[in-house]
């Protein structure tokens, strides 16, 4: 599988070339949010705001009111925790096209609880007018700008940086409210998002070798979340639904599944994997994903529980799984 680095940094420069109204606002984390190349390429469209996120969000709203396309770059926690009132009242209330790029989602950073955005989806998803996207690989990081810009209102993006796998072909960009169907099967349904999808793909590959038929959907749009394929996937499994997210199980993907299952009376058992009502701490991503049960092994164990069987899968088996980029099994026009 291909691995790319500084995907957003390069893509942002190319994307913004013919968009003179696109401006980047940064709160002293310009390189950390891969906006440095934009700053160097278009210094007149780079607006330095200093470590002052509350002002930055309201200021961005002002720019948006005058026809600009503000691309706010900072760590996710500093958008929704530090400046929630400003996001809600200056940006979301007025339905302004401010695009917020929140870096370091969940436990993707060793920065500890202060830097780990673990409840952002819960807060942003409940804000009226807000669209919530989450990138899962290089292809989605490359294509999320188009989707964010196409929405005529505020958009919050859980953004990835640094070294990224290409899980999905470059020819299959992120599309608004279109899940990727990565595997078909009726024993279990797995919904995953963000960087958890790579883990889920490893688990699904092994589950298949044990004869388990899995419907695996990757969701990059968490709001709106109305695609019929999602409901179909929740309705059909014989042994339950599992969700895997880089977030608290409350308020995010697990809650989305729970709401749909309840509202549609699907009566299917739901297993939610993610942070279980806890903050995390500073450590490596692999360590944290293991410790908090967000990795492939945790998903395999949960699948075994749902199936009430031991599939004889060991951690070493998972370490040997190599995954390749996969096309969605459903064509965009089908979805």
């Amino acid at each position, binding site marked *: 599988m291909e691995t790319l680095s500084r995907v957003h940094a390069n893509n942002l420069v190319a994307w913004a070339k013919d968009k003179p109204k696109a401006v980047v606002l940064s709160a002293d984390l310009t390189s950390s949010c891969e906006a440095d190349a934009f700053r160097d390429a278009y210094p007149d469209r780079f607006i330095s705001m200093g470590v002052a996120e509350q002002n930055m969000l309201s*200021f961005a709203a002002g720019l948006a009111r005058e026809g600009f396309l503000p691309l706010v770059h900072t760590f996710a926690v500093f958008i929704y925790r530090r400046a929630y009132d400003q996001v809600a009242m*200056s940006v979301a209330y007025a*339905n302004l096209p401010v695009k917020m790029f929140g870096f370091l989602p969940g436990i993707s950073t060793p920065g500890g609880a202060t830097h780990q955005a673990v409840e952002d989806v819960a807060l942003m998803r409940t804000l009226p007018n807000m669209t919530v996207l989450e990138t899962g690989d290089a292809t989605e990081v490359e294509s999320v700008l188009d989707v964010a810009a196409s929405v005529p209102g505020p958009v919050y993006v859980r953004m990835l940086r640094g070294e990224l796998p290409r899980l999905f072909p470059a020819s299959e960009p992120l599309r608004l409210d279109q899940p990727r169907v990565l595997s078909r099967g009726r024993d279990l349904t797995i919904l995953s998002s963000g960087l958890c999808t790579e883990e889920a793909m490893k688990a699904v590959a092994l589950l298949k070798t044990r004869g388990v038929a899995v419907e695996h959907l990757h969701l990059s749009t968490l709001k709106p979340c109305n695609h019929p394929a999602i409901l179909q996937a929740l309705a059909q499994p014989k042994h339950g639904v599992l969700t895997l997210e880089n977030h608290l199980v409350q308020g995010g993907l697990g809650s989305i599944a729970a709401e749909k299952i309840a509202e549609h009376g699907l009566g299917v058992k739901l297993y939610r994997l993610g942070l279980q009502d806890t903050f995390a701490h500073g450590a490596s991503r692999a360590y944290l994903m293991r410790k908090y049960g967000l990795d492939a092994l945790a998903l395999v164990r949960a699948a075994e529980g749902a199936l009430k069987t031991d599939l004889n899968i060991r951690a070493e088996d998972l370490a040997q799984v190599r995954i390749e980029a996969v096309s969605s099994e459903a064509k965009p026009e089908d979805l």
Partner: protein
Amino acid sequence: MQTNWTDEVRQASRRVRRRVLEHTLKHNGGYMSQACSSAEILATLYLKVMNLAPVDKPLRPGPFPGVPSRDNRLYATGAEFNGRALPHQDRFFLSPAHYALVLYALLIEAGRMDPSGLDDFNRDGSSVEMIGAEHSPGMEVTAGSLGQCLSQAAGIALARRINGDQGKTWVFMSDGEFQIGQTWEALQAASFHQLDRLAVYVDVNGQQCDGQVAKVMNLEPLHGRLESFGWRVLRVNGHDPEAIAAPAARATDGRPLAVLCDTDPCFGLPLLRHNAPKLHYLRFKTPDERETYRRALEVL
């Protein structure tokens, strides 16, 4: 013939206080002291200082248009009362949204709102709300969560500079907002980005919800603090129209402008002093008190 604009401002201010007191009596409560302190500032801005686009005729406020959303195609802000937003023309932003009634009354004096518009004040389903939002007459942003307006106006001022607009961006603020961290973030950003077409008028009435500002959380020396943040600061008597207008006539020196207007929260209605230091919201405690204010209205 030269009309005496300062007399116009004074008369308009008196009528603004009258209207606010009328509605305070009608609703058995209201933001009275804000009218007392700020009427001359807002009247001077509207009648003398700001270069707002005219309106064809005094406008009648519509019903609450719903909240902004993708599906609300008919949504419009209350900015139309301030005239069309044109590049060469000024824009006005009211930060302390609980001053709404003062602004509505002033819009009537400025010939921008039909006097009947105030019949809808504080009425269910109306846009003429007690604490206005961006659908309310004369308002363009939702500023009721105090401290957010200056940041938004600064963003607008920067956008207008990039667009080459010649018009200025005026913000009215209350002194209590200078206790808010975001205000200082906005002040440093405005001076850092040299937004010299941004100007703030502050009603320094020394009053806030809990009482005297100096006893709740001291702001002084506000002049020096603002200056140290890179603003050009002038401090004036906030009831003297000429003093209020003078700073706006000066040529820019490259810094954003703050005019600190020292005001009396009981100006024009000395009766209010009995309520000191709790002046933020006037609520009549007895029928006698209400009657006293009703008589005061007759002579205001």
